[in-house]
């Protein structure tokens, strides 16, 4: 193994990244605590949220059929997709039918999960991300690293450079002499995207909630890019995981209180859009809903792991996680980083790859994630359960078929990784050094693709900014090296 890199440049770079992450996660979590403290019934809202989601999951077939009927009755067209390839095919065909070669998108983790942008690109269709952070990520040919603030790993100087260099290639160029002030950067994004919004004929979205009873879809956002994508195009295609359904209109009273406060620490996010099918003369004339499985039913089959499907993607667990804070979102090799990623990804994708098998170990089991989770997902419980599965093997469901997996190769190494994690978290200095190493490796291997299941996510794009090795590896290596220090 090489000695620790001395390059000051790398060290500075990594210090910035760590500093950004630390500042961001601490800021959000302090604000969040204050927003939550405003509601004396928070625990009851949290319990109700968990119960509503459990009711839904235990009767998911019922609610999906009800949802399908109410969306259809409201003028929408419902499609079902068992996996990523099927969902991508459906969406690609729908876009092709419109004759358009360009679409606008509002940030959606489901479409990141299935690699929709890449699939569309392969079909000659450009998908323009319109969330400011997603735009930064897309223009930078990068990957998101946080659920809520996907470009959290980029500072304002880097963003200015990305805009200056890349905007012109895809549309309106960045203004001359653009500085790194957030207001100017936001204005540059506004101008660049506005021309896309005004001419777009197809919009693609996800949804935060789908109400079975009424067929209503809900998108929660801040910037207005969601509203643009949901209302200006003639055709709207929403790709939504089947776990996003909730039973009733009334249930929104729980989640519209818990989601914004847990997520952006606001009493309410600036914009929430709700639409039910299509409305004459207002908004898209054609609405397609693509219901996505892609590993969710496999997750549902696990009685312990099932609770991960309650997640409302608020990102609170990321912001309190000591491992996320040090490792950053890219280390998780999935659109779902942090504690939720550590339990969701290995369930959605299985634990066959080294990366996915290592994810249940990307935790110190400190329990902070469970404490903040607005739907009370016992993340530590699921982590331990998945570790057992990795180490001992056992029954799992893979693409709908019950099967038995064998213990992961080198499970002794997994235990070592756990020890290493505990060790490293007790010694921030050592961890810092380990991160520097990871950062160095990243720069030495500027362009690569993720292997294994991660490949589906990055199938047709280069991944310049992903850390060059799985979380577990660098911990392991770090332990070895620290031993020799």
């Amino acid at each position: 193994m090489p000695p620790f890199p001395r390059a000051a440049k790398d060290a500075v770079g990594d210090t910035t990244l760590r500093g950004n992450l630390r500042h961001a996660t601490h800021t959000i979590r302090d604000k969040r605590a204050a927003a939550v403290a405003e509601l004396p019934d928070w625990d009851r809202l949290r319990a109700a949220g968990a119960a509503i989601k459990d009711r839904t999951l235990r009767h998911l077939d019922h609610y999906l059929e009800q949802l399908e009927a109410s969306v259809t009755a409201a003028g929408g067209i419902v499609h079902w997709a068992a996996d990523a390839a099927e969902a991508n095919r459906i969406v690609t065909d729908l876009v092709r039918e419109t004759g358009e070669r360009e679409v606008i998108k509002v940030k959606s983790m489901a479409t990141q999960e299935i690699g929709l942008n890449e699939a569309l690109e392969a079909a000659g269709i450009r998908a323009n991300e319109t969330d400011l952070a997603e735009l930064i990520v897309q223009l930078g040919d990068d990957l998101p690293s946080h659920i809520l603030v996907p470009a959290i790993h980029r500072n304002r100087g880097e963003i200015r450079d990305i805009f200056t260099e890349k905007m012109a290639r895809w549309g309106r160029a960045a203004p001359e002499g653009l500085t790194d002030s957030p207001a100017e950067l936001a204005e540059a994004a506004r101008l660049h995207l506005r021309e896309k919004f005004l001419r777009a004929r197809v919009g693609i979205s996800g949804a935060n909630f789908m109400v079975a009873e009424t067929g209503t879809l809900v998108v929660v956002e801040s910037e207005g890019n969601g509203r643009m994508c949901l209302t200006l195009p003639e055709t709207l295609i929403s790709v939504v995981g089947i776990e996003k359904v909730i039973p009733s209109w009334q249930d929104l009273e729980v989640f519209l209180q818990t989601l914004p406060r847990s997520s952006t620490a606001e009493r309410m996010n600036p914009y929430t859009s709700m639409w039910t099918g299509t409305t004459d003369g207002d908004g898209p004339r054609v609405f397609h809903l693509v219901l996505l499985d892609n590993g969710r039913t496999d997750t549902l089959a696990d009685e312990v792991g099932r609770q991960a499907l309650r997640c409302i993607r608020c990102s609170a667990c990321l912001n309190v996680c000591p491992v996320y804070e040090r490792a950053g979102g890219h280390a998780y090799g999935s659109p779902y980083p942090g504690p939720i990623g550590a339990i969701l990804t290995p369930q959605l994708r299985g634990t066959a790859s080294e990366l996915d098998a290592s994810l249940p170990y990307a935790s110190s089991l400190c329990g902070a994630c469970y404490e903040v989770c607005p739907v009370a997902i016992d993340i530590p419980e699921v982590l331990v359960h998945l570790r057992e599965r990795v180490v001992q093997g056992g029954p799992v469901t893979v693409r709908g078929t019950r099967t038995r997996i064998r213990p992961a190769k080198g499970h002794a190494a997994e235990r070592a990784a756990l020890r290493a994690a505990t060790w490293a978290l007790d010694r921030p200095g050592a961890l810092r050094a380990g991160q520097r190493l990871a950062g160095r490796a990243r720069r030495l291997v500027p362009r690569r693709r993720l292997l294994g299941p991660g490949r589906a996510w990055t199938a047709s794009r280069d991944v310049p900014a992903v850390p060059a090795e799985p979380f577990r590896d660098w911990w392991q290596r770090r332990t070895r090296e620290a031993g020799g220090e």
Partner: protein
Amino acid sequence: MSAREMVLARVRRALADVPREETPDQVPVVRDYLASHSPADPVGMLAEHLADYRALVHHTDEAGLPALIGGLLTARGARSVVVPQGLPAAWTAVDGVRQVPDTAELTAAELDAVDSVVTGCAVAIAETGTIVLDGGPAQGRRRITLVPDHHVVVVRAPEQVVDSVGQALPRLVPGRPLTWISGPSATSDIELDRVEGVHGPRTLEVVLVRG
């Protein structure tokens, strides 16, 4: 097997542990959370919470409304204003300000050239500082409160003001397109610095009309 049948079959197999006779209603959801966090003065709280998220809040009565709105448009330097159906004509009748009626034919590009929009609302929520539009009278299509950079919204207090999200939902019709607005468009994507306005109106002015 179609994808639909396949997914539903997988769901049913995955739920083998759920007793067949169990109905959804039998999975308990205890709703012992508060229906309202009991603000003593919901209208005051609404104003305060709107201002927290940088909406500009104004107070007037019915008689003062046209003059107030006229003053806001003039101060803004607006030369055109979108007017939804059902909005009292007197509210936007300002010298030198062109009236642009909200119609289905009004394109996004045309809207982009308009300076301001004035609307009413369906309901406003004190606890969260939220205004809800439902496309009803005086509110227009969703796009008219999105594309122009300046939105003036009129809230009738106390009739249109409720305490909580839980009190707002039963007053809304799910089949209508709904837009919930809490302060102007904002982003915190750059080093978590809050910047008002990326795509929606950068200026939101709320006029509270006390009856």
